[in-house]
Structures are given as structure tokens and as C-alpha cells.
């Protein structure tokens, strides 16, 4: 806790979910919304193709926060807002920095952002989610 400073970077987390990943994730969560697996339907809704589930974005935000908290800390809160759709095959990367440190409560607030773009593309891609997390360091 003493070593945590405002502005300190959060170790990045990356994941590239393909169509199979989205189908499996939808099956295990019983998410049957066709925008996640039906290309023609997704395009009829104005999307470029099947899109990543909100909860999968949340998993990456949680993983980034849990990684920062380490084995003895815990994640108390994660929040994210969807800013743009991420598509099957996109590389997703969550990065962040420490926003605030509360030594009395043992809590650290992290600002987090997720970029998405083609897995073989250059640069971080575009912002698809922004959010924050609160971790408790024991």
C-alpha cells in the first residue's frame, strides 16, 4: 500500500476473442442475442459484424484490477461504459493508472480504458470502453 502512487500504471491485460470464443461465452452465460454470433443480423443492426459481449469487456476490466491487487488484495468494484462496439477478432487491451489512494480504507481507485482494433493492426486501436475499479489491498 505504501508503494502505490497516483498516476502509477496498471499492468495491461490483452485478449483477442474470435467467433468461437464469443459463441462459447454466449453459451455458458446463456446470452442468445444474435448480434454476438449472427453476422448477417449484426450487419442489419448497423454493426460491422458480431460484437463482443458487455460482460466480456467487464471480465477484462476485472482481470486488470485483480492483477493490480495481487494475490492478497481483492476487487471491490468494477464499472465500465461501452463507447464503441468491439468485434470478433479484435484485439482488446485494458490499460490504466491509479486515480486515488485511500490508506485509511486500504483502497485504491484505478482509471481503466479498453482499446480495440484488428489483431494485426498497428497502434492501440480505438477506445471501446472506459471505466474504473476499486481494489482493496490487504
Amino acid at each position: 500500500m505504501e508503494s502505490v502512487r497516483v498516476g502509477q500504471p496498471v499492468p495491461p491485460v490483452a485478449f483477442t476473442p474470435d467467433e468461437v470464443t464469443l459463441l462459447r461465452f454466449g453459451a455458458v452465460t446463456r446470452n442468445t442475442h444474435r448480434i454476438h454470433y449472427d453476422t448477417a443480423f449484426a450487419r442489419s443492426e448497423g454493426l460491422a459484424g458480431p460484437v463482443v459481449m458487455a460482460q466480456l469487456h467487464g471480465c477484462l476490466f476485472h482481470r486488470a484490477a485483480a492483477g493490480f491487487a495481487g494475490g492478497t488484495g481483492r476487487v471491490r468494484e468494477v464499472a465500465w461504459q461501452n463507447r464503441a462496439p468491439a468485434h470478433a477478432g479484435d484485439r482488446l487491451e485494458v490499460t490504466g493508472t491509479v486515480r486515488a489512494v485511500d490508506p485509511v480504507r486500504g483502497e485504491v481507485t484505478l482509471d481503466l480504458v479498453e482499446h480495440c482494433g484488428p489483431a494485426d493492426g498497428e497502434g492501440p486501436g480505438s477506445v471501446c470502453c472506459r471505466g474504473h475499479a476499486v481494489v482493496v489491498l490487504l
Partner: protein
Amino acid sequence: MAAELDLAEERARASIGRQERRPLGVVRAEDAAEFARTSGETQPHLTDPGHSRFTVHPMYLVSLLRPAPGPGPDEVRPDGMYRDEVPGTDGLDVRLMAGGQEVRWKDEVRAGDAVDVLRALTAVERKGSGDGFLLLTVEKTYRAARGVLVEVSERFIVR
């Protein structure tokens, strides 16, 4: 489409504060492990149900839309979404998107927990230009016999 969006807004506003309870069944370690694997986790305590420190992935419960054995054919809209998932939209030709969530953990979710979720629509906002879109906020509380496990504020976009 504008008339349908207007009707969705009218219905949603009329249902603000109405609470519903939805059983989510018993949390199974195997399902939580599969969830962890599909979300890209590699840590054995999340992906191996036989691990000595196995832990239900914290995002599993709040990502689960329905318990086994899943929905009947009359519970799903033509777009594949559950008819009652987004308040006010049942039977309407409107487009649904997730807007984001705030998840607050109150207690650890354990394999074997029998869970239900209390849901209530708490806010309806009309945003954007032209016909615009609806931003709905739903508050959810996940409970087991020993108390509250997780609280969630979830936002849906209706166009």
C-alpha cells in the same frame, strides 16, 4: 421505428420501480470454470474446479442471463434477446445494446450457492437528436441464503 421507441419509453416509464425476482439456480463450479476459460483466464484457481483454492470467477454470476435449462422458445425475441431482459421492449421492433455496468461485490460467490436476482428499472432517459435513443438503468441485487453477494447497476440502450 419512432412510434415503437415512443411506446417502449412509455412502457418503461410506467414500470419504473417495479421489482421482479428471477431465480438463477445453483452455482456450479464446472460452469464457473468454463466461464473463466472462455473469458481468457488461465489461472488454475479460476479454471480448474478441482483446484484446492478454486474460486468462482467474480464476473460469472453477473454475466449469467438465465439458469439451466435455458429459455423456452416463447421467452426469446426475434433478435435472440430475452423478452423481459430490457424493460418495455417486449414485442417491439427496437434495437437493443448494452450500455455498461457497475458491479459491486459484497460477498464471495461460492459453488453451491442458490442465487436469485432482484431487478428493478430505476431510470429512463431519452437522449440524442432526432428520434434519439433510450438509456435505461436497471438495478440488480444478487442474493444467496446468507445474504447479498453482488449489486449491479446495468444500462441498456434502446434505439
